[in-house]
């Protein structure tokens, strides 16, 4: 399981697929999700296979999620904010 080495310190909350996720100020959405044990962020547009954050630095585009209704957002590049609604990017919702 993932852990935080320096205590929790999580001060803000957002939701992911309806589940409440605790994050620290400065966490990217992807980091907060991994810390919360959520490793699947999207479904492949080709086969629907599950995918999750891979590079954490904005190059692989595997962590695409829907943030507050806007699809195709890189979870590893956007900082988590209180009250955000984050959902997995589903294959059939992607406008190619």
């Amino acid at each position, binding site marked *: 399981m993932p852990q935080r*080495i320096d205590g929790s310190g999580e001060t803000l909350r957002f939701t992911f697929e309806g589940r409440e996720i605790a994050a620290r100020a400065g966490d990217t959405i992807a980091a907060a999700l991994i810390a919360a044990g959520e490793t699947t962020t999207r479904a492949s547009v080709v086969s629907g296979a599950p995918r999750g954050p891979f590079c954490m630095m904005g190059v692989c585009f595997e962590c695409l999620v829907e943030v507050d209704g806007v699809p195709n957002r890189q979870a590893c590049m956007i900082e988590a904010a209180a009250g955000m609604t984050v959902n997995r990017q589903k294959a059939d919702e992607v406008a190619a």
Partner: protein
Amino acid sequence: MKSYDVVVIGAGPAGMAAAVETSRAGLSTLVLDEQQRPGGQIYRDIEASDATRRGILGQDYQSGADLAAALRGSTAEYLPGAVVWNIDSAKQIDFSVRGGSQSVKAAHIVVATGAIERPTPMPGWTLPGVTTVGAVQILLKTSGVVLEDLVMVGSGPLLWLAATQMIAAGTPPKAIVETVPKARYRAAAKHLARAIPGWRYLAKGFAMIRAVKRAGVPVHRDAEEIAIDGVVAAEAVSFTSDGRRHRIETAHVALHQGVVPNQQITRLMNCEHRFDAGQRAFLPVVDASFETSVENVFVAGDGAGIGGARAAAMRGRLVAMRIAEKAGKPATDGREKLEAALRRDAAVRPLLEALYAPSEDVLSPADGTLVCRCEEITAGQIREAVALGAPGPNQVKSFLRAGMGPCQGRMCGLAVSEIIAAAKGEEPSSVDYYRIRPPLKPLLLSELAAFEPGEAPRAAAE
């Protein structure tokens, strides 16, 4: 539209050092960086890290703090969260920031976008729970997050560094599966004498390997035929080592086969590139001052060939000195000293390149292995397209859509070039690479609609 003497893209060691130096020389300088805080990936979140985290990450990480402080203290304008999506031949740079787009003009461009991890196609590498080794470090640097059952797979200095950092954090990796073939040690030993000026790196390397041994982390050497098992997420790593098949259960796997220059911007700008056999990667062709074949476009740092963080900062300063000279500013001394230091710093590279060359398994994946993750194109499909007459990556791209997904070939480009070259019995240099077109990153229509070409970026405040 606002114009600058120098626009630096990227705020890692090279970008920070270059910007500090050009602004000191009196040149108007803008730094555009995708991240929210300076440091690049190597010094990611250096300003925010406390003593505990810096202790875990080590002395070399801490040295980034001075560079970040120098950038903050300089007259360079620093614009975080800025994603460059186009640069034209007149050096107009378009980027999106805070949900809208802006443009600036540059007399000189310093591309300091560093390195990315080499693509590592293998069965199961797209399963959730599988990341790069760099991703594991980023989690630690930015959020203090560690993974308890991590299995590290591959080779290279970064893998050993990340392993020692995990140990220092109190969560040693469950196992290391190293892909360096036994015969490589002999090949690498030939470079040992030449590497002596880089003894500090060698000492650090041995210390890291010792620390892993001391911590009792199982290290499986000379591993081949690696596969990550799982259905909806990673469940185990299977591989052959010491003549038998192993299987280690885990939900977290980190892959690494070295880092390679991030070519997106230099390709977009039509800079000349060459394939470097030692680094097994494409490098922009640069002169002694790291100027590319496109006048007044420079590449500082790992983007011009992998040299590491110390070299990146030194290259950034050299680039800045040359730009100041071209702009007619009084010459600064110390250039020869810097060049000598860079040469010394690079002494260890041939040894590292020989020892940690990418494994055959990832250079030549099995037919069924996915290579293009975005469009799910296998190595076999790429070979088939070559057999049908596709001469290079751009034709394979139009045959199969390989490299046409959201990552725009970043995750498969090198592997695709290697597979095509091998299928044709040629070198990657002759088959070349994907053509890179704007936008460099996908952007929202609203980011394009909210275009303010006239607006000057706001100066960065703390």
